[in-house]
C-alpha cells in the first residue's frame, strides 16, 4: 500500500482543486497508514479502525 501513497496524495489534491474542496473530509486508514502518511497525502484524519471512522464521521456530521 505504501506504493499508492503518491496516488492518494494526487487524488486528494484533485478533490481540493476540482471537487467539492473543503466541504469534504477525507479519512485514511489501513495497516501501513499512520499520522505521517495522513500528513503526506493531505488527508483530514487517519482512522486506526472502522469504529474510529464512525466516531469521527458522527462528530463531523454532528450526529448523536
Amino acid at each position, binding site marked *: 500500500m*505504501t*506504493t499508492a501513497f503518491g496516488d492518494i496524495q494526487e487524488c486528494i489534491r484533485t478533490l481540493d482543486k476540482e471537487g467539492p474542496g473543503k466541504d469534504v473530509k477525507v479519512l485514511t486508514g489501513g*495497516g501501513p497508514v*499512520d499520522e505521517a502518511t495522513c500528513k503526506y497525502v493531505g488527508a483530514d484524519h487517519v482512522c*486506526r479502525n*472502522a469504529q474510529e471512522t464512525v466516531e469521527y464521521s458522527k462528530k463531523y456530521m454532528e450526529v448523536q
Partner: protein
Amino acid sequence: MDENTKTGQELYKEHLERLKKAVANEKTDRPPINLNADAFLVQYGGGKVSDLVNDPEYGNDLIIKALQKLGDVDCGGPGAFPAMGGGAFFFARIKLPGRELPDNMIWQIDELRPMTEQDYDVIIDKGFGYYTEQFMKKYFPETEESKKDMEAMMQLGPKVAQKYIDAGYVTLGVSQEGGTPQPGMMCIAGAPFNSLSAARGTGEFLRDIKKMPDKVLEAMNVMHETNLKTLRDTVRTAKPLTVFTGGGREAGDFLSIKDFEKFAWKYFKEAANVVIEEGSYCYLHLDCSWDRFVKYFLELPKNKMVFGPDGTTNIFKAADVLYGHTAFYGDVHPSMMSLGTPDEVYAYCKKLMDRFADKGFIMSTGCAVPSNAKPENVEAVVAAALGK
C-alpha cells in the same frame, strides 16, 4: 575477525546460532536481522522487481548482492517465484510485475471470492481439499506458462536456496539441523478463518458468522482437522526452526471478543500447539491490530513463540504482557520506512533495542519492507541492530 573476512560457512553457522538463541528467547550478542524485503532488495541490488518473475535465479542473485551491500544481515531467503503466487491461498489471481503489471510494481492480489453459501456444505461433505481442487480447476487450469513456472520453481528452488546458504544467510524456516527444507515442505499454521474469509470475501464471511454460525463452525471443524494433520506431518518431517503462524483478518476490529474466541482463537491456539508439540517455534506473523488479543498468547507455552506484529499492534504495550513469555520481532512501521527519515528510523530501532534487545529479539520491519522504502532507512535499521 569481521564479517568481511569470514567464509560463507562461518557466517551461516554464526547467523544460525544467533537466530536459534533469539527465537528461544535467550540472550544474543546482538539481535539477528531479518528483512522480509525481496521487492526492495532486488532493486537495491540494481535490478527490477520483475527480475524475480522473469528470471528468478538472476533476481535472487541481486537480492544476495543487496544483502551483502547492507552489512552483516543474518537472514535472507529466496524471493517470490511466479508459481508461488498462484493465488490458491488467497482465492485470488495474482498480478505480477513484468507480466500484468509494470516492472517495478509489487505483485497484487485480485480476490475472486468464489465461495457461495452452498459451498459450506461441499466443504462439510467432501472436505476443503476437494473444494480447493475444484476452485483451482475452474479458475487456474494448467497452462504452458503455469507449467513452466512450476517446473522452474521445482528445479531452481533448491539451487537458489543453496546460494543463500553459501553466502551465509539463514531463514526463519531453516531446518533445525541447518539447511533449507525441501520444496513442498513449507509449513504454515493458522485458523481456517483466514481461508474462509478470503474465499467468501470479508464482508460476506462476517455476515455468515452472524447468519449461519453453526454451519460456519461445522465447515471450520472439517478444515481444521485436515489442516492439523497436514501441519503435524509436515513439521515432523521438515523440522523447521520456526513455523509461519499467521493471523490477520481475525484480529483488528472485525470481531467481538466472544466471536474471536469462538471462530478464531480456539483454532489458532490448537494449530500453534501442534507446532510446539512437534518441537518447532511459532513465528507469530500478526497483521492488523492484535492490541485486544495480546493476553491470549499467555495460554500457549512460554518461550516457544516469536511475537511479530506488523507495526499496527502496539509492540511496547504487548511487551507489558508478553515480555519474558515470547521472543519479539519487529517492527518498524512501513510508513516510516517509505516516508520517514533515517534519523527517525534509527531512533525507533534504538527504542526497540532498549526495550527488547537484551534477549529474544529479532530486528525487522513490520510485516515486510515496502518495495519503495528509502534505501537509507533500510540501512538505518541494519546500522541500529549492528550497534553502529
